[in-house]
């Protein structure tokens, strides 16, 4: 389990529930590494400003990660974390590697505001 204050998505069922029961989802799939920690921190910090978005993390080496790894939108990604944005269960954006707060907010604003 990742050591963050975010909701954790740890199984296939939790992944299905996450993207099907919430209209807007930001899911960060990574490890407790230098490129991933800043993205988790951004999610924790901006989360309260985006009531309509469900923020969750996922262990890249965990049981549920294949749900993210097999997405067409992340093929070609070679850097952690894989961050995927879902709207009504469909991927609307995906990024690879570290992102800064402006990059994350611009995607959240573009799709979820």
């Amino acid at each position, binding site marked *: 389990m990742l050591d963050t204050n975010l909701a954790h998505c740890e199984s296939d069922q939790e992944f299905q529930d996450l993207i099907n029961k919430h209209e807007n989802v930001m899911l960060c799939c990574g*490890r*407790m*590494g*230098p*490129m*991933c*920690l*800043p993205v988790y*921190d*951004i999610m924790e*910090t*901006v989360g309260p400003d985006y009531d309509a978005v469900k923020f969750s993390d996922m262990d890249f080496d965990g049981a549920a990660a294949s749900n993210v790894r097999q997405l067409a939108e992340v093929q*070609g*990604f*070679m*850097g*952690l974390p894989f961050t995927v944005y879902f709207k009504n269960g469909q991927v609307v954006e995906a*990024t*690879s*590697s*570290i992102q*800064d*707060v*402006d990059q994350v907010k611009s995607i959240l604003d573009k799709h979820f505001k």
Partner: protein
Amino acid sequence: MDPSYDDFDRVVSEYDVIVLGGGPAGLTAGIYLGRAKFKTLIIDTGTAGGQMILSYHVANYPGVEETSGASIAKTMRKQAQSFGCEILTQSKVAAMQLEGERKSVEVVGKGVFTSKVVIIASGGVPRTLGLASEKRLQGRGVSYCATCDGDFFTDMEIVAIGGGNSALEEAVALTAYASKVTIIHEFDHFQAEPWIVEEAKKNPKVHFLMHQEIQDFIGEKKLEKVVCTHKTSGEVTEVLAAGCFVFIGYVPKTDAFSGMVKLDERGQIITDERLATSVPGVFAAGDCRVKRYRQITTAVADGSIAAMAAIEELNQS
């Protein structure tokens, strides 16, 4: 930054000390100041911990046998907060006024904060090559963290750029995954210590391209090759590579303070023994200032010195 910023109508909160940067230097300053009962605010543009979180394994932090930079950062943050220090992360500074008895810092979306003393602990950032293709292919082959992304390149040919200790150590570490690692360096000799140069030279998977200038990263959806030219002959070489790890050092994060405090020719803040800058009431600590050695331990030392100097100044005022 607007150095003439002087809008005190929108003041939200007053502090004794504002610390700009939440790496090991800034967090240590926060611990010392908070414990001394001074109202302290740490503002960081990113994640608390700074470059410290880039270190997966830390084995030379006295008193701790082995840990990670992220773990030390988390504990330091908790420790500072336990002494009453407030911390704002992911916060963009819109304007700053460092002159005069009352300093002010405006943070986007958070308001204006004032203080008698400011400690600049803005740290450094990994140096990039500055190529558009480098940015476009980050996370698609271009990486700055071997430990994070090394396993994506199992049995592939990759490149490591740089000639210092980090570049050579990481290049050797990457041979655990990659089938071939080509080290490309801008000079005809390495800056790294001889033992790691020897280790790299002995490794059959490691190859060298010296005295090169990187021209471009080629690839649409992912990196395919790195293009460089020999700095003397101009000969162009294309290196097939699925990955490229860039380790070309760090630059001080001091652009925002240019024209406000004295910087040296490398953009590092000039300080005296008390870590005071050219501006009264403004101190600098950690990797943003002129210093020879940059370690978590030296940043921590800086943070404590700057905090104690700030306490002395506040007690005298």
